């Protein structure tokens, strides 16, 4: 009587075991060469800064206090760490904007690639990534050449008589955003393409034939297919953008810090490794919570059963 359910349970268990085995290589690599050593960082956040970098093995919670509160440098009073908060919010802001713009540009681009003949799709995909075979530094300098006062755009606009004074584009927030969108574009286009490519365009066609409005076609046919791609792309754009600093410095002038700079400062010139460690753990936890909430909310998680 109970043999059949038993068999099913055993099958499910075997399936789960296989799934763990399959993910083992990825988990091991990440454990050994990325996150495992981070335990050191957790420990470091609870130690005292070494006199000249590194740490002293003396327990202290000062770093954690400094993440959330600032001790006034002149009268020692504790107030919420507004500097950290404003830096964090700036980074979040930039990441959100970058994600939005990469979706706006990346989705149509991925659509365009996915609707090419099967044979040339890989080629178009390759064309998206070729600019990134160059180095970020050189690439950003080239962008600078395009937008600076004596740069390509201004020269063109002045020669054509559209403006008579160069537009200040370099060292503006717009320049940073443009640079970030540029840098992150492949991270959005490629995942969207990967999910869009499996869309059966005859479905779209059929939907149109049934006199569905473009909006309905979009929400009922296209979105469910591309959603996992957009979710994946957003993660790949949003999270790394939080730590961005090369583009903000070179195109934005670096007058204001990003989270990446703030943490880098503690490990570098600031020589306060525990604070750097505590700041980065805080960032990780916030991002992790946001990620899990986002994935759950967007319904793109594998936990939703399919078949």
């Amino acid at each position: 009587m109970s043999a059949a359910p038993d068999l099913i349970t055993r099958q499910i268990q075997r399936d789960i075991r296989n799934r763990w085995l399959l993910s083992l290589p990825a988990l091991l690599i990440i454990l050994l060469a990325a996150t495992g050593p981070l335990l050191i960082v957790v420990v470091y956040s609870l130690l005292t800064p070494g006199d000249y970098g590194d740490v002293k093995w003396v327990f202290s919670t000062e770093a954690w206090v400094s993440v959330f509160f600032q001790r006034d440098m002149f009268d020692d009073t504790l107030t919420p760490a507004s500097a950290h908060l404003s830096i964090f919010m700036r980074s979040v802001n930039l990441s959100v904007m970058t994600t939005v713009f990469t979706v706006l540009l990346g989705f149509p681009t991925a659509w365009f690639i996915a609707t090419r003949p099967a044979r040339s799709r890989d080629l178009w995909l390759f064309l998206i990534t070729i600019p990134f075979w160059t180095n970020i530094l050189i690439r950003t300098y080239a962008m600078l050449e395009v937008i600076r006062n004596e740069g390509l755009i201004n020269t063109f606009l002045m020669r054509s008589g559209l403006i008579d004074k160069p537009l200040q584009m370099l060292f503006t927030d717009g320049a940073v955003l443009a640079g970030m969108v540029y840098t992150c574009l492949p991270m959005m286009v490629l995942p969207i393409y990967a999910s869009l490519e499996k869309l059966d365009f005859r479905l779209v066609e059929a939907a149109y034939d049934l006199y569905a409005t473009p909006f309905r076609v979009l929400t009922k046919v296209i979105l469910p297919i591309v959603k996992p791609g957009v979710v994946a792309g957003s993660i790949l754009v949003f999270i790394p953008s939080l730590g961005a600093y090369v583009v903000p410095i070179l195109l934005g002038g670096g007058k204001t810090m990003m989270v990446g700079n703030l943490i880098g400062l503690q490990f570098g010139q600031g020589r306060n490794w525990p604070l750097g460690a505590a700041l980065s753990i805080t960032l990780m936890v916030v991002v992790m919570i946001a990620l899990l909430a986002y994935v759950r909310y967007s319904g793109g998680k594998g936990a939703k059963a399919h078949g």
Partner: protein
Amino acid sequence: MKTKLALALTGMLLASTGLARADGELNIYNWGNYTSPEMIKKFEEKYKVKVTITDYDSNDTALAKVRQGGSGFDIAVPSQSHLPIWIAEGLVQETDVGKMENAKNIMPEWSNPDFDPGRKYSAPWLWGTVGVVVNTDVYKGPADSWGILFDPPAELKGKVNIVPEMSDILYAAIKYNGGKLCETDKAILKKARDTLVNAKPNWVAMEYGTIEKMTAGDFAASSDWNGSAFRQRLAKPSIHYFYPKEGFTYWSDNVVVLKDAKNLENAKLFQNFIMDPENAAMLSAFARYANGITGSEPFMPADMKGANELNVPADKKDKAEFMRLCDPATQELYTKIWTELQK
């Protein structure tokens, strides 16, 4: 014919003894784009040593990596501000540079520095100063003051860049307010912070790319290193380097041999080698900074001889001091001011 052969054989023999004495490798860990390839080639040929160069981009990264060890470097080139830490933490070997053959070439002012008394550990690489560059096409007035950056004249407003070296900029702001190196007086620090915060709206950027952006006209004034200023003037003669009258700092990079160096003998040979005037001149010609070696000037490129950027004027010499690291508590205050400035 026979004598020729004998000579050739002796030559080969000499070469091979040289080979026996300094066979193998040398692993150099140095600032990026800082090591003259010609000089390295000369060293390799002279001692039959294969030199490997690896780059770093900050004293803090270099210190962190060398502390952990295991990377296989024989030689590093820390700045004088950090050198005492390397020595105190036992990261470097005492190679008695001061007694090496070429040590006699070290200029008197560099032969017994505070950061390495008696030159027990380090050989001088290059040195320089931190000051102010101004494009005199844009602003013609007097510019030998940190006020150019902190209280810029109308012509320079919105065209000032600050090279984001925390210690250098805080030093400048403290000096500007009458303080001293590693100032701890909170009244002065407060003034320094206010100076920086109030000056910031006049700045266009805080970044490193001064050579390119000063010459292209994106910046009209900046804090800068003297060698960088020198290269800017060569590209654009209207750019001048000024030594701030409130006080400015020297820096000096020095070659040390690491404790776990596998190629100790080659490393020592290298320390001695760079103190030769001709070789030191090669370093200067490549990186465009002055060296501390007597007699190297005749070997330097003509444009470097007597250059204002590379020679501190006599009347400013007493305004200069060596940058050093401040104690951790002071450092923490500085970091807070710096974070406040860029929040």
